[in-house]
């Protein structure tokens, strides 16, 4: 599948995400924040990093980037969109995903391996429901938050896609939520970094590969 990865000023994991996609058999296409189109890709990823330095609220500047108009239209048409870490923050700022990301409870940047469970079937997690993944998390503002009514609603709708295993929540997010989707399930965001757990020669394991492979998996009948 042709998957676009957007580089915003300050994106850091863009090239790593392209490498992970190619390891999963996709073709990674570099997209630029100032472009207007998506170069006919079949899926889009907003990678991790510090867009615009995160000097304002994370994602608050990047979600106004020129390419985001095309991303919104693509998402509305059902196109698969994934936001990882800073990408998740941008999707929340853009209103494509519910909730917001606050500073970690520890008030420190935290980088470690975390254990997650996959709790919902989405375009990005086909066939993974019920599985546990151990992948790295690395952020200072990863505490997903929404008010109780919103959280209840998305729990009900099956929009909680990833949840930290009990006692492993690295940032104090509401109900240990690590990643969520939109109602349709085509837009997904998560704080941990599946792209940094895809290469057997590197530290971090290869559990993240499943997320990229799932994208090509056939839709269950």
């Amino acid at each position: 599948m042709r998957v676009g990865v957007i580089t915003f000023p300050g994106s850091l994991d863009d090239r790593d995400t392209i490498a992970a996609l190619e390891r999963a058999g996709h073709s990674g296409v570099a997209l630029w924040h100032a472009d207007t189109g998506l170069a006919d890709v079949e899926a889009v990823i907003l990678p991790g990093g510090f867009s615009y330095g995160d000097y304002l609220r994370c994602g608050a500047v990047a979600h106004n980037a020129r390419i985001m108009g095309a991303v919104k239209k693509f998402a509305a048409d059902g196109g698969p969109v994934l936001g990882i870490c800073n990408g998740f923050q941008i999707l929340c700022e853009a209103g494509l995903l519910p909730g917001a990301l606050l500073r970690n409870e520890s008030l420190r940047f935290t980088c470690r391996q975390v254990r997650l469970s996959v709790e919902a079937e989405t375009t990005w997690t086909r066939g993974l429901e019920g599985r546990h993944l151990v992948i790295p998390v690395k952020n200072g503002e990863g505490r997903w938050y929404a008010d109780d009514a919103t959280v209840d609603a998305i729990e009900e709708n099956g929009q909680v896609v990833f949840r930290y295993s009990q006692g492993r929540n690295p940032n104090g997010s509401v109900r240990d939520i690590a990643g969520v989707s939109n109602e349709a399930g085509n837009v997904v965001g998560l704080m941990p970094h599946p792209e940094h757990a895809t290469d057997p020669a590197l530290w971090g394991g290869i559990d993240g590969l499943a997320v990229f492979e799932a994208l090509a998996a056939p839709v269950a009948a």
Partner: protein
Amino acid sequence: MTSFPDNETLEPDRALELAVELGLKPDEYDRIVTTLGRIPSVSELGMYSVMWSEHCSYKSSKVHLRNLDADAPWILAGPGENAGVIDVGDDLAVAFKIESHNHPSFVEPYQGAATGVGGILRDIFTMGARPIAVMDPLRFGMPTDALQRRLVDGVVRGVGGYGNCVGVPNIGGEVEFDDCYAGNPLVNVLAIGVMDKDHLQLARAEAVGDLAVLLGSGTGRDGIGGASVLASAEFDEGDSDKRPNVQVGDPFAEKLLIECCLDLYERDLVSGIQDMGAAGIACSTSELASKASMGMEVDLDEVHLRDPTMESWEILCSESQERMLALVSPDKLDEVLAIAKKWEVPASVIGTVTEGDQLVLHRDGNVIADLPARSLADEGPTYERPMQRPGWLDDYAAVDAEDVDLPDDLGSFVLSFVSSPNVASRRWVWEQYDSYVQAGTVLPPGMADAGVVRLPDSKKAIACSTDGNGRWCELDPREGTRRIVAEAFRNVSTTGARPLATTNCLNFGNPERPEIMWQFAEAVQGLGEATRALGIPVTGGNVSFYNETRGVAIHPTPVVGVVGVLDDASHALGLGFEDEGDILFLIGADVAPGLAGSELQRFLDRPLGGTLAPVDLELEARLGELLHLAARQRLVNSAHDISSGGLLAALVESAVAGQVGVHYDAEGLDPAQELFSESPGRVLVTVSSVNVRDFAQLCSDADVSVRDVGTIGGERLIVEGLVDLPLDDVVDAHERALPRILGS
């Protein structure tokens, strides 16, 4: 006779007075007058004061550093360049360097540490390389003191805040606590970068008519005189007044600047480039011109400023961060400006390379400085400062360090030792740093004796270790330095890499004191001896003098960084024990008396003292080669050297990292020596039983002695007859200590 505008013209008396205020000595001022044949202008005086500062000119250290060797076929750039560069094969080159940011970090811990990272990264990408890793050897006073905890917190946040945002993984470092650093913490930062060999950039002007393009952030009033005021004088009371001299970092601007510069190199658009750190425009223009024996005309009106009311000398000496000076052929200028625009990096053309060797600066249509570039950059004063062996060394030598009685309840003693600030796990620190970004990290902090990163689009990996030991160097600066070089070499070797080159950060007290200068000269001797014997030439580094507060100097603390190469990243060895049933071997030297200056001595609050036996450098070289071969043949599953904290600390670290127990068969020696000796030349390795015969043969061929000392497995940490503890208790003690001490 050159005449200057009124606001640049000085009367002779005032000129001398101002020179002294700026940190120049009266005889240095006289030298400026002789060089110029007249009274300097205000701007000229400002430039000389920073360029002739200890920090920029190495005036006290030069005569000693000249004796270091920097020659080997694989060295592509050595001392005098922004960073050392080595050839690692496959047409790839690796740039690396270490630098200090000690004083700024004491004054303002977050920004001091952050800009330390930013500065060393610029040294790397100035050479043409993409930065792929940073390491941070840090030293503070004891964390029982609230001030020290605040410094640790700020420095760690600063290193992380900058490195995480700019997107370079942290792969290791050190954290040491000792009272001698209470008034003067050491914040050293090492960076590594990689490039195609033919993209190596050397910082020099090449052609008359080339344009000097200033890339990056606006020039502001931050950091004015940082090099002369902060880095080249000791501290006294009330130094919070120096806060305006600390620069402020902008990692986002640096990230864009890195991508912009790498884009320019890729298209071969610059003919020379120099970063702007200490002494800003004064330094970059004079160094580029001086190295090529050329001149430069610079128009300060063209410099993009944060504050238009800045004086000329402020513009020249500003240490605003995230700036580079590139030399560009006029026909390539449009393309360069277009790329800067793409990356949203401000750019302005501020000068032109000229015939001759004069650096001529203009402001508001007037000449404000007109001086030989070389007189600033290369012809500053050089001192052969007096040296004297410190009398206190005799007192240290008189201490009986090796005879130590341990308490009867060794179990609880061991638990309190492994949870002490200098032995406890550094996880609290490294978890605040991104160690995954750039998808190259093979072995992150805490998992090996050296950090290991794979090179992009290659099977090769780089291993790097930084090591320092102020207590050893206080006892004997020459032998202490030989030992830390051996340790860094050994640390790189235990990952299976072949060590290739050395960088160094020499942290010392006030060089105007003969005892300090003697310590420095001895340490440099030791550095030269060890790096020659081990075949790892010194490619450059940094000297940090004046590390003292209220007349009390730190222990002499040279920190070395050794870089090595693994031909195949998959051969890399971690320190964690792996498989139940593996055999534990101790290879290398026999245990020898090794408690002088040791962690045990510090932990027991015994007076610092004793003597250091000479490290066997030939054995270290053989040991290194053996480890390299064993890793390549996949005969070994883990390797960890015995260093600070002795055998006990090594067993704990490997068991905790591997989450598996160990049974060690004690040799029946004096328990303090057996468990805590730091005598060099020893490495613990684990081997699967099927590989034991081949491994033993390899050791025999390498003429390295090998002893079967135990087995891996179970859930206890056992040293036969001495220690028997549940692994869970050890893990708890080791991992929970720093969060408890430093805050969760």
